[in-house]
């Protein structure tokens, strides 16, 4: 009788351990999903100008030429702003917007 009880106890501990490990693993996966859920996937067009360049004003019929001009103006203004940062580095100069019309 005693060996049977010992074997039963070992089996019970094994099952409890498995259940515990499984529940921890599931909780970890749920946490990961919670963290990743609010993060929007990057746009297929990338993040350096193109996300806005692809569709700056939905519904508008901005021509490619006009868009190109707008992108180049954006580059010039941003370069000027970046050179300003170089002369006098500050958090504000990284965060303020230029007069560029290439906005989201």
């Amino acid at each position, binding site marked *: 009788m005693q060996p049977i009880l010992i074997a039963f106890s070992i089996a019970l501990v094994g099952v409890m351990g498995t259940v515990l490990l499984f529940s921890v693993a599931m909780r970890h996966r749920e946490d990961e999903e919670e963290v990743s859920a609010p993060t929007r996937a990057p746009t297929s067009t990338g993040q350096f100008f193109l996300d806005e360049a692809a569709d700056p004003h939905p519904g508008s019929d901005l021509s*490619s030429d006009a868009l190109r001009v707008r992108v180049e103006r954006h580059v010039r203004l941003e370069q000027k702003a970046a050179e300003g940062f170089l002369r006098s580095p500050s958090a504000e100069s990284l*965060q303020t917007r230029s007069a560029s019309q290439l906005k989201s």
Partner: protein
Amino acid sequence: MPIPDWELLDGLSPGEASAVLALASAARLPGGSVLFRLGDAAENLFLVRAGRVRLTFPMRFGDRQEDILAEERFPGQMVGWSGLIPPHRFTLQAVAVVDTELLVLPGAALRDLFLERPGIGYRIVSNLAQIVGQRLTVFQTMWIRELQRVVESQGA
């Protein structure tokens, strides 16, 4: 036409600057002509003597590809540091905006001169590091500002 102060030759004595410039040949580019294309082997670097050079990268607009301004180089400035720095491939396209005069410095001859006269090599490489460092910081700043725009556009 006045000869500009070359940013690449800053700090060299007149004799040292002459030794560098003796390696150069003059070139004229009509406005609109291509100096080099993205991906080309970079065998030379260029000093802008007069005119203006526009550096561009390709961007797709629908079914068309356009060359978009990255930066412009003016008299006194250099173009094409890839001629000195491995892997010696141009990473942008360069086009003369207007009729432009250049001095063409062969990278290999310049490297030979550096071995022969290390003082010149040290000064030019220091100048190059400063030029590249400034441009890197400008582009890093532009990148950070773009990320800030992205974050704001996400509603943060």
